[in-house]
């Protein structure tokens, strides 16, 4: 009994599988017959068909540009054979609008136009006309074109930086003072300027920043960039940041025997200058040296003008270029002494020298010391080593020494005019004379 039940069960299970297979095969066969043999006419909507535009070059050559389209896609109802219709999708269907029609068929002027579109099918499967577009949500595409203009607009910039003490920012510099803007006339004409802006926290050196350009209209509002073309989208701005430092002016001082910093006043006008420049250069700079003041060249005082040379790469804020140094010796006198003790040395053998002229010697010292000096205390030595065997008259710088007075200065350079002549043969061996013609 059980064996029979099992057999019936097995047989029914096998039949079910067989019926399943048969039904699948049958449905495939029926489907194939309908699609391949019958291939009925069906309709189908395809949505999201993209619209593309051609002929924009023709528009732009007429100074026009497309600014608005009423729709970016179409929904079209197609009818045709089943096997063709089912292959349609927004990926293989597109609509093309020829903008050049505005020029060729219409007025080629700004305005709104209704243009027809042409459907194109991706893989040319339906080029023989297997599919028909029966209806669409839009039978034409409405486009708006405006006159396209180009303008040059000014770049205006501002910034927000914090500078530490003694740092200054100079004027903002731009890589370009203006940019050109192209686009719809109404928008471009509303633009007032191109704005650039940057912000930095503490800066101690020159800032170079590439800033995005924003267009601002006459009401101060930002202009949307849609449809706008700029000659450049960024402008490089440079903010020179320099250190300013006030530096005192000073001079190298040469004192004589009779004077020192205690009895000599040196006044510099101006006393300081403010310079600006690179922080690294100025950080270690504490003074500007003007030059040398030699207080032995003049008697009791003098005035000199020096050019102020700022540190390398730096400039003076006020534009001052010279300084005046005035010095004065306090409590001393000057006195002239007739020379009485002049010696000529280093005369080349075979030659002799004669003194043609020499001036008074000017000494500086206290009154008491000068009163004590005698002319014979003043030794004048003229060395002709440099002149050698050259004949003629020479102004020779002589050395002057005041014997026994170590706090008395000889003021200025002492020049003696000598003449070198050959020694006469008959007078060979005769020594040179030293005359002290006082002029």
């Amino acid at each position, binding site marked *: 009994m059980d064996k029979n039940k099992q057999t019936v069960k097995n047989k029914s299970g096998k039949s079910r599988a067989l019926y399943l297979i048969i039904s699948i095969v049958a449905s495939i066969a029926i489907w194939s017959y309908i699609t391949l043999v019958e291939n009925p006419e069906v309709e189908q909507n395809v949505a999201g068909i993209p619209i593309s535009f051609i002929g924009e070059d023709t528009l732009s050559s007429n100074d026009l540009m497309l600014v608005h389209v009423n729709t970016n896609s179409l929904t079209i109802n197609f009818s045709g054979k089943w096997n063709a219709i089912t292959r349609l999708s927004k990926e293989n269907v597109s609509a093309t609008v020829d903008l050049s029609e505005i020029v060729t068929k219409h007025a080629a002027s700004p305005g709104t136009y209704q243009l027809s579109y042409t459907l194109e099918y991706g893989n040319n499967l339906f080029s023989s006309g297997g599919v028909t577009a029966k209806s669409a949500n839009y039978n034409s595409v409405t486009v708006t074109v405006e006159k396209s203009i180009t303008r040059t607009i000014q770049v205006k910039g*501002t910034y*927000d930086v914090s500078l530490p003490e003694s740092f200054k920012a100079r004027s903002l510099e731009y890589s370009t003072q203006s940019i050109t803007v192209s686009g719809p006339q109404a928008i471009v004409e509303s633009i007032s300027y191109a704005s650039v802006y940057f912000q930095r926290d503490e800066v101690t050196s020159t800032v170079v920043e590439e800033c995005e350009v924003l267009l601002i209209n006459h009401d101060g509002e930002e202009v949307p960039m849609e449809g706008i073309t700029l000659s450049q989208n960024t402008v490089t701005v440079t903010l020179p940041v320099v250190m300013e430092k006030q530096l005192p002016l000073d001079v190298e001082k040469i004192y004589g025997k009779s004077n020192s910093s205690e009895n000599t006043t040196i006044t510099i006008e101006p006393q300081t200058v403010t310079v600006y420049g690179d922080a690294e250069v100025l950080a270690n700079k504490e003074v500007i040296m003007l030059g040398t003041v030699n207080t032995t060249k003049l008697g009791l005082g003098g005035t000199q003008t020096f050019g102020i040379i700022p540190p390398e790469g730096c400039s003076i804020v006020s534009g001052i270029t010279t300084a005046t140094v005035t010095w004065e010796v306090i409590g001393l006198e000057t006195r002239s002494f007739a020379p009485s003790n002049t010696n000529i040395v280093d005369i080349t053998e075979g030659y002799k020298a004669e003194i043609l002229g020499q001036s008074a010697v000017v000494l500086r010292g206290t009154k008491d010391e000068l009163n004590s000096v005698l002319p014979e205390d003043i030794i004048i030595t003229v060395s002709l080593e440099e002149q050698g065997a050259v004949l003629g008259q020479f102004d020779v710088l002589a050395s002057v020494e005041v014997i026994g007075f170590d706090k008395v200065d000889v003021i200025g350079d002492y020049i003696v005019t000598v003449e070198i002549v050959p020694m006469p043969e008959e007078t060979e061996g005769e020594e040179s004379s030293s005359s002290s013609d006082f002029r």
Partner: protein
Amino acid sequence: MFGYVKPELGELKMKEFGRFRAAYCGMCHELKKSYGTAARFILNYDFVFLFMLLSEGKEPPEMKMRRCPASPLRARCVSCRNDALTLASGYSVILAYRKLCDDVRDENGLKKLKAKLKRALIARAYKKAVRRYPDFDNAVRDRLAELTELEKNREPSLDRCADKFASLLASASKDRVKEQILYHLGRLVYIADAFNDLEEDLKKGSFNPIAARYGLSQAADKNTAEAVKLTLEASSGVISADAELLPDSYWTGIIKNTADIGIPKMITSVIKGEYVASPFRPLRNVTLKENGDDI
């Protein structure tokens, strides 16, 4: 530095009081609309005066009834956006931000922290305002930098310091008469603020232009106070005279009230050492009609 320029509310006509409040509320709404909620908190009388001064035309500006957090239940008449309002609000943001930058640089401790926080809150508003009005921002920044330099060098000339702040404010208008009013307003505010801060600055050892000018090491004596009063009144006189030269506008009554009564009263209380910045408390039963006509 701000809050010195306000009308004498008790001497305003009822209609002018309503107009003033419409201007004040208009500025507040414009600041919020253009620059965000945080920008509302910079609002003060001085900026409202700036709006009224920059306005032109006798016709009432467009008005609307609006509610706001300060008046959530009752709608108030508010001056709507116009050229003067957008200009004044933009300039106000720039001035307030630059003032906070100075506070961050000059103050210490808690005051510095507060200034930093306030500055951060309006930084975005400032960035927007600066895009719209770069020339004004550049002028403000340059004048303040020059003023900082003078203060750093302990400039003994009061006029030279006050001139920098005055020039900064004057750059807000190209009209000759308004430029003069703004110049003397700036000068007056700078000197009055310096006199107000004199004792505190002397305690802290900070630069004070009045202390530098008169060689003060302690509070101003009677002679100094008199001299300062004289110079303030000189500027006040110019403002008053120039106000008469302005063409009639919707705000003329309030401007003249401020010039003839408000500012002189402020000077007197500053010199007496009694000046206190008081909040604006409008009379609640005074308003304008919806179309801006007076009640």
